[in-house]
């Protein structure tokens, strides 16, 4: 099975305090720690497991981003992906979800993939690129997949996570696009040695002209959904903060917990 996995380089929210720049144009990017989007890591692991279980085919990881995105492609190749492709061009910058899906579609149509995986969502919580891509390619889609079983070379059985921890089982025809939910597997650990092994593998970079993408379909100027600014919303009071030394805080908290029925 030929599998393509879309991956994005994002600021790691577990490692960073995200601050909005005072002029509202962006978040503070100095000193940000970046990593591969958490959901995409599960998608790559799933692809590798499918390839290994089926016993044939390959896993290609692909990212739209600047040259620094090469680092996450390499990381996913160290996990076990066979190929990496970077889609990079100044013209791609500021694309909205539809623009991104347009770029990915152009590359996908140059190959022949049986299965395309994305993460369920990325850093801006949009959860849109996979569904858009499927619609553009006119193939079936299932989101939030947390179970996957290959039935034969024509179809899969997939579980979708729905509300309340319940699972919706579906049969889906190949080729298709699936967005992968966290928890579907346990992504393997990537050590320094693994990274070193793929350090010199060449990762092709494709620009708009290589992909034959019309200039009016992508980029900031053609985005019909645009971020105008970042701002700090007025959120009212928020929590009463307990301050002081630990002993004071502990005593105050115990008092409050007793009053609210939090201690038995």
């Amino acid at each position, binding site marked *: 099975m030929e599998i393509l996995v879309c991956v994005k380089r994002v600021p790691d929210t577990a490692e960073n305090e995200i601050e909005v720049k005072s002029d509202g144009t962006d978040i503070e990017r100095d000193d940000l720690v970046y990593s591969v989007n958490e959901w995409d890591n599960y998608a790559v692991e799933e692809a590798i497991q499918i390839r290994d279980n089926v016993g044939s085919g390959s896993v290609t990881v692909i990212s739209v981003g600047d040259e620094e995105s090469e680092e996450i492609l390499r990381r996913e190749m160290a996990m076990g992906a066979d190929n990496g492709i970077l889609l990079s061009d100044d013209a791609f910058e500021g694309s909205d979800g539809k623009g991104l899906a347009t770029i990915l579609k152009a590359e996908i149509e140059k190959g022949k993939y049986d299965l395309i995986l994305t993460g369920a969502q990325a850093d801006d919580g949009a959860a849109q690129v996979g569904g858009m891509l499927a619609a553009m390619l006119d193939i079936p889609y299932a989101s939030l997949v947390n179970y996957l079983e290959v039935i034969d070379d024509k179809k899969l059985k997939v579980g979708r996570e729905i509300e309340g*921890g319940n699972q919706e089982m579906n049969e889906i025809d190949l080729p298709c696009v699936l967005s992968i939910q966290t928890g579907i597997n346990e992504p393997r650990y990537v050590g320094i040695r693994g990274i070193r092994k793929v350090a010199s593998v060449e990762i092709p970079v494709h620009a708009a002209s290589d992909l034959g993408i019309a200039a009016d379909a992508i980029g900031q100027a053609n985005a019909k959904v645009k971020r*105008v600014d970042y*701002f700090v919303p007025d959120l009212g009071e928020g929590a009463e903060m307990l301050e002081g030394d630990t002993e004071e805080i502990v005593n105050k908290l115990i008092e409050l917990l007793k009053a609210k029925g939090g201690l038995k």
Partner: protein
Amino acid sequence: MAQIFAYITHKNGVADDMALELVAAANKIEAGAKVTAILTGSGADLDKVCNEMAASYSEVWKIDNAAMAHPNAEVIRKALVNILPGDAILLGPHDTFGMDLSPGLSIKINSTFVPDVVDIEGMDGSNLKVIRQEYSGMATTHILCDVSSGSVLNVRGGVFQADESKSAGGQVVDKSGDAGDLTVGRRFLEIVVAEVGDVDITKSDVLVSIGRGIEDEDNIEIAQELAEAMGADVSCSRPIVDAKWMEKSRQVGTSGQTVKPKVYLALGISGSFQHLGGIKGAPFIVAINKNPKAPIFQVADIGIITDILDFMPELTEKIAG
């Protein structure tokens, strides 16, 4: 102004809570708008919800088809492509169904799409100005969305105050005949219901809830000791379950359990809307987090900025005496 629609999800003849919130959202796009609800499904349950929705929507479009007995987004998308006018503004829920349906729908009807809308400021020329959040709620943005050839907007649950006025006096219109060919490449099989765990956290009065801030599986013991001293149960956020450190039945949130405790201790939990969506009944929330910017502090009653790994043992010791 383009016609505004709201897609209403429902189960067992009961509309989702979002049904009345979407009325309020539509009114933020255009005050006093005549909004059309769209419901898909099959049989008596569908009729019942449609009739109820007529009180809140000026028109209710019903699409009844056996293929829609279970809400398969692939099927529903096809039907909506056939019945929506070209410049429709369609509101839907930003939940596991909306995520499945809407991005692809926007492509198929050549409109724009905005996911997870948390507020609507109104029209600005041919653009609609809305508010979204990024980075798990740590940054807030204004978005301009061109609606001139239609738009699909998925709205976060619980952010708009439900419009309970029920004064629309609408009528139900049967659109079943316009749905068209509904064959798709994805077929619904069954629902697998979540397993019941050893402890039912939905019945707990006091929860000691841990998130990614617990850092390591071995540290869970520290939280268990605190819970024991307090007479509480331990629950958790999703990453703890994803890491297989705790059972799925202990997960609080939209894709886990809905809990209604009196007291909720959020330890090393950032406060994503999916996590908060599982906490009901307005408990007394204590948030302990080392990041003063964590969104959890906006919803908590009491906040403490500290390392939970240092703080928990101190608290346990003092309570245990």
